[in-house]
């Protein structure tokens, strides 16, 4: 039987041998600890978005680490966690990432309430939080804080892109249909404000707010109520499981005939793929026409993504990929991983991304990442975008006065 001492000796010998092997065979960064970033998202309950997002993220990480990582040779590591899709769990997970895993910053979240809870946690713990996806305007406006930054264009920005695209038509009588929660209601509020600025005599003739995920239950009655008000234009905020029955029932009941339809998020592959040959024609939508973007770096991303995951990219994939590169550039610019230096570097920092140049506006901590606006159409029985253009986020952000009024 081996004595304790002999065990210790052999153990240390093994460790030494392992260390030696690593040094001899491993890449350069094995001598330095990796730079850890905490990523939390609703991988279980929001898998349609979050899993492609994670794929994009892993693709970028592989590329970055193959090229030498960050800070001159340290590995960039993302510690990825499910946030359980409740605020309580999410804050717990964020805590675990910061105190146990010792991450330098937090990234991620999808649902707005979770994004807000984590941003508040970041504020309390003085940790940088780069919110990649949550769309609520509160996160950069009323509930904004010094430690939270957002990457995607928020609800207001996306609504403004659509209003800019539709205002030339001069449609006056509008119907609004939005899911009955914060995202839907703030999109509706933004639309009301912006459409009246664009077309002063525009009026909202009917508003419907079905409970999220339950539109299908009373689809007929909701559509009949919209139709009865005889609008000339429809602003739709439904997405996911609510969008497909809206399109199908609306088509059957002739709701869209002769009307201008403006629809948020509909062109994102996440929501457009299920529509297939039911995809309506000529809705004005925001989305992601990944297969038509010719910019070489974006094309390289699409090819690499398809090769690695044997799937087509979603908007989430692009976002995940882009966010990891932003994190790399940020850490390299800051030259360190402490929060103060990261924040100093991040304010008004310019990024060169696969979706064009992006500036992180220091005023409201909102990135100028833009979005694609175009018309919906069908190609070979699949939904697609046509006549689209990329709108730079700079042109649709909140005005400085708005921001200063909201962020006291």
């Amino acid at each position, binding site marked *: 039987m081996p004595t304790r001492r002999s065990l210790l000796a052999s153990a240390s010998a093994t460790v030494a041998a392992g260390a030696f092997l690593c040094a001899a065979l491993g890449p350069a960064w094995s001598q330095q600890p990796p730079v850890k970033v905490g990523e939390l998202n609703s991988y279980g309950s929001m898998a349609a978005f979050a899993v492609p997002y994670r794929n994009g993220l892993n693709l970028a990480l592989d590329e970055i680490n193959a090229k030498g990582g960050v800070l001159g040779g340290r590995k960039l590591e993302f510690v990825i966690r*499910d946030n359980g899709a409740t605020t309580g769990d999410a804050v717990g997970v964020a805590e675990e990432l910061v105190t146990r895993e010792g991450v330098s910053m937090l990234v991620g979240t999808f649902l707005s309430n979770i994004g807000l809870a984590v941003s508040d946690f970041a504020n309390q713990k003085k940790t940088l939080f780069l919110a990649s996806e949550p769309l609520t305007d509160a996160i950069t406006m009323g509930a904004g804080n010094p430690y939270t930054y957002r990457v995607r264009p928020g609800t207001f920005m996306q609504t403004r892109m659509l209003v800019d695209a539709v205002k030339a038509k001069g449609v006056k009588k509008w119907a609004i249909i939005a899911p009955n929660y914060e995202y839907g209601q703030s999109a509706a509020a933004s639309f009301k404000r912006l459409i009246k600025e664009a077309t002063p005599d525009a009026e909202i003739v009917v508003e419907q707010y079905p409970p999220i995920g339950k539109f299908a239950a009373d*689809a007929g009655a909701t559509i009949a109520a919209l139709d009865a008000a005889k609008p000339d234009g429809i602003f739709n905020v439904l997405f996911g499981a609510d969008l497909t029955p809206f399109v199908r029932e609306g088509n059957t009941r002739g709701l869209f005939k002769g009307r201008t339809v403006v629809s948020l998020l509909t062109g994102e592959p996440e929501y457009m793929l299920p529509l297939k040959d039911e995809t309506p024609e000529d809705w004005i939508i925001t989305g992601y026409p990944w297969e038509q973007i010719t910019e070489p770096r974006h094309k390289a991303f699409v090819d690499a993504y398809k090769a690695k995951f044997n799937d087509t990219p979603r908007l989430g994939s692009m976002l995940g990929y882009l966010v990891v590169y932003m994190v790399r550039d940020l850490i390299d610019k800051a030259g360190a991983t402490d929060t103060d230096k990261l924040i100093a570097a991040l304010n008004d920092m310019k990024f060169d991304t696969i979706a064009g140049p992006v500036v992180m506006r220091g005023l409201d901590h909102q990135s100028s990442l833009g979005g694609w606006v175009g018309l919906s159409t069908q190609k070979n029985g699949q939904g697609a975008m046509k006549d689209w253009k990329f709108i730079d986020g700079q042109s649709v952000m909140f005005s400085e006065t708005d921001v200063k009024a909201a962020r006291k």
Partner: protein
Amino acid sequence: MSLSFMIAQFLNGLASASSLFIVASGLTIVFGVTRIVNFAHGSLYMLGAYFAVTLMQPLLDLSRSFPMFLLGLLVAAALTGLVGLCIEVVLLRRVYRAPELLQLLITFGLVLVIEDLVVRIWGPLELLGPRAPGLRGAITIAGSQVPSYDLFLIAMGPLVFGLVWLVLHRTRFGILVRAATQDRDMVAALGVNQSLLFTGALFLGGALAGFGGALQIPRAAASPQMDIAILTDAFVVTVIGGMGSVPGAALAALIIGQLNAFGIALLPKSTLVLVFVLMAGVLIVRPYGLLGRPEPLSLRVAVPEGFTRLMPPTPALWLMCGLVVAALVVLPLLADAYSQKIAIEVLIFALAAFALAFLIGNGGVVSFGHAAYFGIGAYAAGLAVKRLGFGMEAALLLAPLAGAAGAAVFGVFVVRLQGIYLAMLTLAVAQIVYAVAVQWIEVTGGDNGIVGVWPARWAEGRVTYYYLTLGVSVTGIFVLHRMLHAPFGYALRAARDSAVRADAIGLDVGRLRLLAFMIAGAATALAGGLYAFSKGSIDPTLLAIPQSVDFLAMLLIGGIQQIGGALAGAAALHLLRVWALPLGDMWRMVLGLTIIAIVLVSPQGIVGGVAQLVQRQRRARTSS
């Protein structure tokens, strides 16, 4: 409102009533026979939709005809029926003798497992099925476009009702189902093969759920979220109609269909609450639903065996409690900041779960909406700090007061009911509170909730807040425990075990139960206030059904018959959750399987199981 619009809304209401009825009839039959509130009914509905989406395209490729479409619906329904049958044979059969709440919990475990399987098999994206051949278009009725498929749906409701009626009234199986619905013990005493009857009921219920789901595919995409969405609707229909009553379900579905159709036109933002307000109203006026019957006295539905053989703690037990508290006191010296955080959460949940045990185990008041009081406390504390400028200390005092006040208002109606109807009213009340939190955006912040609810400066440190929570929780639990052994506790148990006899010896049963409801509400709200300050943010998920289920699960995992069960259960469930969360996509499956395993292996819960083991060993020692 024009006449043509009213006709259109009436037809829309009928179509959704048909769909609702078909699903709800399955739920009500299963409940009638097995007395199990089957949470997995929504999952069966979802499976029906997915089966139909998968099967329909190949079938329609063979021949694009309406009969083929019908065949697809029936096959999907039969397959779902088989799943229901398997659930009965593999799982439910093993737990018929367990407390009713445990049965409910096992079906909730199934919900998690099935949801996970669906995402694994069919992917997270929603799937749009083909439309029904020949029924793609719409016809004009009174100036409105009505989809022909809606007319088909409107016809299916009465057709299914007729078929179910025939099965229930003209077959031997149906007669037994009705007999079991009225008096299960009598049917068993007459020598009827119960397991066959139950298996049959689950097959029928599953097939109806599956048929309901399959019918939806031309209107809505199949998605992994559709199970919970339909479940609450189906519950509401069965409760309003009277649980176990098929005609009641039909009547309730008709009312709800029309209520929603016209409610959408008149009050478009109120659709979240409308049905729950209706359900609460019906239960207050007619405690057994519109066409339900009071339970026969021999059956205490959904009242689990509560605390039994309640004896004053022995010195050994006091010693053990003292050791646990001492261990908790020294914990911050040994554990890192994150473990302390987890410990804080466990302590908070322990207080809330113990309050629920106080209510259910000792008072026999089965609350399905316990999260409402947890949330009321959290919101009261959060709003006091953010909107009224209170300090943390005042906010923490306000939380239990708000909880008690809320419990008093709702309790007046709740405690008059019994068993499953009482449970359903607490659920309805919780849903109404939830809807208020979601919709009253100016005050509650809606879905986004309230952020920035952090402790006062002195309690900001992790260790300080830990000791604050420890102090409050232990004191709260101690006070509740003291009440169990006080005359009030005895009187409450008397009221639980026989309301009639308690009344006869001069106890005011209603007042006792109301008081218990308020005490539990206050203690839970206090826990909610502590929780708000520990997380820094509040949102409506704190008040939602899953949170209520969590509290029930804590109770049952720990053991409902043991006083310490809720405490052990709170620790076990929360630690499991914390452990399973980093598994990412897997956590639903892990949680679901664990719940099922615990129910199967140790139906008395952890503490009950341990107590039994100890007893068995003691007996073995004395006999040898």
